[in-house]
């Protein structure tokens, strides 16, 4: 619990101002904590009088044997014969962490057919690649993939395991963390090494992006995190890089799964669920026609996002109603909302203003959409959007 030293407390109110949870208030000159407290310790850092302390933090977990765990691992996400792009981003981020700590960076590849993939992973920065190659890994199942990664981790003891915050990563990585009884931080957007002790600091958004939290896992290993795709930067591949490939065999009983994949159905682009899309590209009256939405769809596809529209565009028949965002449509709060040619009537704003980042592109510098935008671009959507598509393609391919 949060302990308040009432002799030390000077009632300055810094804790109250800085509590994100409305859990601490100064009453009659002394701080008082209520049941909203999540023991996050935010107030402790702000207290200049040293009056606050989180009890129990210092005694939890096991500190013994942490030194036995060493090296940074990246889970190389494999599905339907290919490696997910987030893997290369993680190798880029992992490379920095490994260099900083002067430890090797390893990739873990679980697959039914490794082929040239280990070499590919090395070219993106891995010093070594652990490969488990087995027919049982042809389809993703939480049990087989989870057990394989768990067994490898127990055998080789990495201090850090990173995976993409993808459908696969967010499904089976919690299994590994729970089995290893260690901490896991989901959907990180920033990773740092703490100077004093080399611990991994994992920063992630919470409360729908309204606050950021930095998490550490001081007493157990490995330190595990899933990382949001498209946040980290991949290094350019270097085909000349050398590395070791370590083949590892997992016993068949550990690769058995009580869940069996029967069939896969690919989703069409416009079946993307607007409410769950991380990126939404939206068009309004400024698109002028159905054709205008083709470039919106292309940008959305490129960014792995969903297509949305204002009521004006839907009413004009340029795009069907399920895409409508706003008072009479859907309410969305993606990580990025790109409003193209949308003036920003209040009916539209209520449906999207809680997005983490809003990019507005509009010809009219006085359009109300700019009032809620994080980034505003005054210009012609027909000029900017196609150029933006080209630019992203160019960056991606380089």
């Amino acid at each position, binding site marked *: 619990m949060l302990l308040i030293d009432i002799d030390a407390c000077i009632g300055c109110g810094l804790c109250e*101002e*800085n509590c*994100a*949870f*409305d859990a601490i208030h100064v009453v009659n000159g002394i701080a008082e904590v209520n*049941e909203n407290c*999540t*023991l996050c*310790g*935010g107030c402790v850092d702000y207290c200049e009088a040293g009056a606050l302390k989180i009890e*129990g933090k210092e005694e*939890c977990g096991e500190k013994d044997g942490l030194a036995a765990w060493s090296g940074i691992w990246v889970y190389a996400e494999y599905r339907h014969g290919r490696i997910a792009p987030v893997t290369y981003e993680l190798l880029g981020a992992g490379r920095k962490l490994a260099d900083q700590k002067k430890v090797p960076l390893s990739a873990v590849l679980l697959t039914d057919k490794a082929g040239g993939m280990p070499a590919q992973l090395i070219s993106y920065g891995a010093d070594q690649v652990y490969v488990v190659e087995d027919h049982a890994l042809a*389809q*993703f199942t*939480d*049990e087989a993939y989870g057990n394989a990664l768990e067994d490898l981790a127990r055998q080789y003891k990495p201090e850090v395991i990173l995976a993409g915050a993808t*459908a696969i990563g967010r*499904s*089976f990585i*919690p*299994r590994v*963390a*729970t089995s290893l009884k*260690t*901490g*896991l931080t*989901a959907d990180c957007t920033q990773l740092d090494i703490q100077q004093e002790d080399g611990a991994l*600091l994992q920063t992630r958004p*919470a*409360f729908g*992006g*309204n*606050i*950021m*939290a*930095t998490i550490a896992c001081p*007493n157990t290993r490995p330190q595990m995190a899933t990382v949001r795709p498209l946040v980290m930067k991949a290094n350019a591949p270097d085909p000349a890089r050398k590395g070791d490939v370590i083949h590892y065999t997992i016993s068949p009983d550990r690769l058995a799964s*009580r*869940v*069996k*994949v*029967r069939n*896969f*159905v*690919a*989703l069409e682009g416009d079946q993307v*669920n607007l409410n*769950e899309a991380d*990126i939404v590209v939206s068009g309004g009256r400024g698109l002028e026609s159905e054709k205008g939405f083709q470039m919106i769809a292309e940008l959305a596809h490129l*960014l792995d*996002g969903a297509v949305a529209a204002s009521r004006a565009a839907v009413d004009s028949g340029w795009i069907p109603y399920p895409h409508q965002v706003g008072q009479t449509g859907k309410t969305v*709060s993606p990580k*990025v909302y790109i409003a193209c040619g949308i003036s920003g009537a209040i009916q539209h704003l209520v449906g999207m203003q809680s997005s983490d980042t809003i*990019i507005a592109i509009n010809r009219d510098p006085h359009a109300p959409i700019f*009032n809620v935008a994080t*980034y*505003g671009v005054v210009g012609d959507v027909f000029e900017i959007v196609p*150029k*933006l598509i080209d630019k*992203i393609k160019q960056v991606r391919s380089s």
Partner: protein
Amino acid sequence: MKIIVCVKQVPDAKDVRLDPKTNTLSREGVQSIINPYDRHALEEAVRLKEKVGGTVTVLTMGPPQAAEILRESVSCGADEAVLVSDRAFAGADTLATTYTLSQAIKKIGGADLILCGKQAIDGDTAQVGPGLAVRMDIPYVTCVRRIVEANDKAFVVERLMDDGYDEVEVTLPALFTVVKEINEPRLPSLKGKMRAKKLAITTLSAGDLDADTAQLGLKGSPTWVVKVFAPQLKGERTMIEGTVQEQVDQLAEKLMEWC
């Protein structure tokens, strides 16, 4: 079929806003609600009950006032409600939470099927469902978007993936986490509200769980919050200036950074 639905009380995210002046969270008028994804889990449980028979028990870990969402769940069709509440659980991360929930489920006699929302909107971790299944040693499927076949022994469900969906087969007992598209949750009914008002909620404390206290709450949590801070302020708009190409270049760079 005995179905347990895990629900969580969360602050209504759409109300939680940053005060642009003080750079702190504005909490005025923030309502506590049932985690929206959990409403879909509950709805699916009630539909299964209506189709194949059985009971639906809602389970939550939280402070005493979390009983509100249990009553709300009962008014929407759940039969029984269990509140797991104790100061000893405070500060639990997902690992400690799954331990506590698994002990509670064992205490109330287990389940054929456990349903959870995909994630909670306050933490967005999506870890409790899978972790709970591991604790219970039962198979799980995350992000279920449709139940295709259901009987006493096995289910066929569609699991949402990044590139489409997998149709998977799983034997019971099992745990699913569900996405919003699985159904449209019903509203409470007047009769349900009357029942909810009268229902006695089973309350379990740490002492009732036969739990290893070292695995509860803060002590059982390997992750610590080092710092909580406000993200880059929204509303502080940056206009991207320059020639069209300059604007596009800057925009592309931002997109790579933010997406």
